[in-house]
């Protein structure tokens, strides 16, 4: 069976190799239909050793480099599988050159514009002080007069979030590894809605796997805050640790990488992978707490809180987890109570009364 798949893949690679660059981009549309090939490639990255892995990496990079959006998507859907394989400690001493080349290639292609300039993405931080299509500043004056509120009033130019420019990298080292991987995962996340379920499922598996390897069972079970209703240990881990947990080295993830993981997991858990998504979330939260990574804990506890108790919908509430949230029926329910706004109004009126 395995050999049949192997042969199929070999033929496929040969076919792809024969394509010219122009043909390659039109080939993209066909790729979507080739379910068997797609599955077989997932299989390659799940096996510890497969001689075709290197040539597949090469082919995937060719697809990515072609620039055709379908081809790129085809390549990107394997990012979770590839990261899973690449970061698994037991694969460390295998030849990962082609894999690294693929990741590095994706990174380097994305940090520059088509003409070779370094890419800088900007994004405006909206402010309520200026009217938008959704609001008028008069109705939404911010309650607190903070220093930044004042300075944002003074600022003529809008505040920008800049990302980039990122350096071109020649080689993956311990120092830049996770900034490159985070960027690659970020690229995956920007197109996550176009990925298929299998890719989403593997993303969750990857996160759970990277956050549980090397952590012993007894340190995982007792949790002080937050109940662990879902099982924390994924099946894959218990299989991998295989009773010798202490000999499995941990994967040392960077906070930025974990935040990218969470971005993906948050999307995925609301789009059909509730269970494995929550599992991944719990595992990431555990590791973040163990290492006191405040930025990651911020996100994990925000997601956990919004899942456990509050008006935001649950993943189970249908797609995207939104349900109707009605205002409590009595219309005058706040009338008597002092609200944040009325408190201010009261003080103002009292002051002006005097």
């Amino acid at each position, binding site marked *: 069976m395995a050999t049949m798949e192997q042969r199929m893949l070999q033929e496929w690679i040969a076919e792809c190799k024969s394509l010219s660059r122009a043909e390659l981009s039109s080939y993209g549309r066909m790729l979507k239909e080739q379910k068997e090939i797609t599955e077989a490639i997932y299989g390659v990255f799940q096996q510890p050793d497969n001689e075709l892995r290197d040539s597949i990496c090469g082919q995937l990079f060719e697809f990515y480099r072609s620039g055709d959006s379908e081809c790129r998507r085809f390549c990107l859907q394997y990012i979770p599988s590839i990261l899973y394989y690449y970061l698994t400690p037991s694969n460390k001493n295998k030849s990962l050159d082609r894999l690294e080349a693929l990741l590095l290639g994706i990174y380097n292609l994305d940090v520059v514009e088509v003409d070779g300039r370094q890419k800088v993405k900007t*994004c*405006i931080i*909206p402010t309520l002080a200026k*009217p*938008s299509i*959704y609001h*008028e500043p008069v109705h939404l004056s*911010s*309650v*607190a007069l*903070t220093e930044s509120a004042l300075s944002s009033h003074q600022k003529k130019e809008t505040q920008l*979030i800049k990302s*980039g420019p*990122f350096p071109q990298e020649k080689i993956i*080292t*311990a*120092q830049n590894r996770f*900034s490159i991987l985070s960027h690659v995962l970020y690229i995956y996340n*920007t*197109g*996550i809605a176009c990925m298929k379920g299998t890719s989403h499922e593997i993303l969750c598996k990857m996160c759970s796997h990277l956050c549980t390897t090397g952590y*012993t069972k007894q*340190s995982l079970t*007792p949790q*002080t*805050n937050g109940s662990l209703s879902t099982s924390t240990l994924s099946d894959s881990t218990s299989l991998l640790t295989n009773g010798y947990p202490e000999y499995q*080295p*941990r994967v*040392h993830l960077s906070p930025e990488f974990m*935040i990218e993981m969470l*971005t993906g997991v*948050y999307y995925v858990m609301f789009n059909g992978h509730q269970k494995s998504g929550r599992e991944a979330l719990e595992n990431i939260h555990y590791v973040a*707490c*163990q290492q*006191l990574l405040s*930025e990651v804990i*911020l*996100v994990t*506890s*925000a997601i956990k*809180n919004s899942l456990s108790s*509050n*008006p*935001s919908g649950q993943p189970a509430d*249908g*797609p*995207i987890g*939104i349900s*109707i949230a*009605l*205002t409590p029926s009595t219309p005058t*329910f*706040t009338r*008597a*109570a*002092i*609200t*944040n706004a009325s*408190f201010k*109004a009261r003080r103002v009126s009292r002051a002006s009364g005097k």
Partner: protein
Amino acid sequence: MAASKKQTQRLETEIEKHRAECNWQKVTEIAKQLHSKGSTSLETLTHLILGESHLETYLKEHPLKEKNPDIAGAKKTLESAKKHLQHAMKGEAKYGWVQEARLLFGKLYYALSDYEECLGYYAKAGLDDLTVETMSNRKLRMIAEAFAVKGMALEKSPPKTTSKIKIAQMEEQIISCYEKSGDIALLYLQECEKGRSSSLSASSSSSAFAAAPSTYVGPLLETAIQRAPILHIQMGDLERGINRFRLVLRAVESRATQNMRMTLARQLAEVLLRGVCDSTYSPPQPPLGPDKSGSLSRPSAGGVIGTAIKVAGMKSANLALRPKQYIGEHLFVPKEVTEETLLLLLISESLATKEAILSRSEEHTKSRVYTLQNACAVYDLLTIALVKRAQYEMLSESFDRSMRFSFEEFHLWMQFALSLICAGKYQRALLVLRECHRMEPKNALVALHAAKLCFNHLQRMDEGIDWAKKVLELGDDSPYAHKGYQALGIGCSLKASEAPLQAERQELQKKALDAFMRAYSLDENNHEHLFYIGLQYALVRQISEAIGFVRKSLKLNDTHLESLHLLALLLSAQKKYQEALKVIEIALSGHPSNLSLLFTKVKLEEFVYDSEEALMTCKRMLELWKSTHESMLSNESSRGTGLLERVTSDKRSLAHIHLVEFSDRDSAAKYVQNPPKSSVHNSIAASRVEQALSEVASSIHSYTPRQGPQQAWLLQVQIWLTIAEIYLSMKKPDEATACIQEASSIFPLSHHVMFMRGLVHEYKHEFLEAKKFYSDAVSINPGHIKSLQHLGVILHDLGNSVLAEKVLRNAVNMDPTSHHAWNSLGKVLECQDEFDSASQCLLTAVELESTSPIIPFTAIPRLL
């Protein structure tokens, strides 16, 4: 007769007013008055409004939900309403009262769960073909509600066919009902607002405005407005769902819609966060100018909002029943998914915090919890959106606003603390963490974060140790116990470095080692614990033990920078300089731009090769410094403010800088306190004194401090001084002086600069000048061992042996591991003919020298 007609008219307007305000009690009263008068001309109206009030009063208590659980009860209660409405139907057909009655009947039958009948009445009323005239507000509301109920009834009716097309059509019809309902409802609310503001313009005081009752939206209309986009999404058409949300949100708000806006804005943000990614996002259309379609501002074409037009029905007359939208040329139109999400969340946050109830009395508990949860939901989403873009500053400010209504809300407080930590406001974060601890004394994470702040950023060793002990009080079963021991160990180890007394120091060292050992026993697969045991052994100069543990640590994590660095230093302590250099090379291959490693490399190269080689490395360091810092600094001077913000706004480059500059996870200050060249007692106080002095200097002289983060500049100073030292060892004092000059132009009052100046003068045998500079260095940093030691030597050379001895004793007291100081002390004592003491000192020096690393072990940061 005329009077009575006038009276009737007056009554009619009054009824109309109360109906519009949904004040059913008043309506019933008037109706009863009329009824008792038996005025025939208004009989139909009387019946109508009586029926209406009965029905509406009932519905207020029993909102229309999925299915009425008590149909029998409803039948009974609504019997009279039914009768009145039937009477109304029989009356003359003018004024469209029959139609109103039919609409009400539809609602009534829905309440009785008779959906067939309900839909039948709407069909009879000609709901779909309503022509638009000027309508009373009540009528608007009725029609809006009728569409809502129709939609709900259609949803309830079982599909008649199995044909997929038919079912799809049906769904389309349901959505269209809700959308019409929503549009009319918004228009109705805007009209109400208009009426109120005009009536209020006479009495213009703001308090009167606040007191004016806002129109009640009601669950029916809210459902209709919210249901339409959700149905789109459920049918898999995310795009249309999003656009429906947008359409509703773009409608000019009225006071009544505020609460709903908060919900809708949050929901759309949720959709954008959970269902959309950059490549599938299409931004909202910019508004068209008012000239195009008058007050309606509806884009006549365009794919995005096109759906709305289709739904609105083909009759152009219906177009009038649309709410007004925000228009104008300068409106902010989001172009990116992050921009739109943030805008929506900010709006939602602003509304949610406004509404949040502050009263803590019993009676308001329910609504307080409700508003709090609403706010909390927005904050959670805001966190998810902002952390993704590393906007911690903004996040912490948002949480700051929430504090007023977050009394005893642990989640919000903790999130606030974490956001402050991320935003670099450590002092305040610690205060917030203390409050969190008060709320949840058993929460280990709170204590650990506090300890981390104390050690890594605030230099409060004692408080940090207290926090660590609080973690340990929870017992060794806690999953954070090992972390608690680690914190305790780090605290003790840091405190030991600053402790003035030998006995105290030794005790703290021992405590630290024990704590690290405990931590390791609890979490054996953690390389950090092994590394710290190694470091602790190194600090007490048990070199071979240390090497054993560091090697174990590297087995668990072979790229661990600090372990590699420590291993190199340990090898250098064993005088295996070649091997040490090899380790550094390996470490550098993983972390090529780590200046800390490069400093060590320079030192090693001087030993193994020659000074030329070391100078080459220094050159590389300067290049590195330039490439990593210069762009940032030039940027800085041109813009003027908020560099840190801009640096942190880009999380990737920040991480990069961390690695480059400080060789650890997140301490900026650490490297400065423990630059590799300095000795143990390079205290925080010293750097503060330096800072204060530079401020004084800048006010007196023309010296202007360089802009940008001080750490970056300090690193450059460090590099220049290293080069100066090398030149000095190459017997090139002029080059050395030039380097010092360079360093001193950045930080003229640094004790490192003073010390180096002293060294040059000492080299030139200018002892008096040398003495002056050494004592200057010591007066800035009384703990600078090297200065003390050299000062002692110079004093001795100048013939002041007594003072020399005192200074040197002082030095060895502060750092008993400095073999140079012991050696000098021995020599001084020897000259004073105290041979016994001298030989002891010299022996100690020899012993220490045999375990002394090329750079003090304290160069490696100890961070939680």
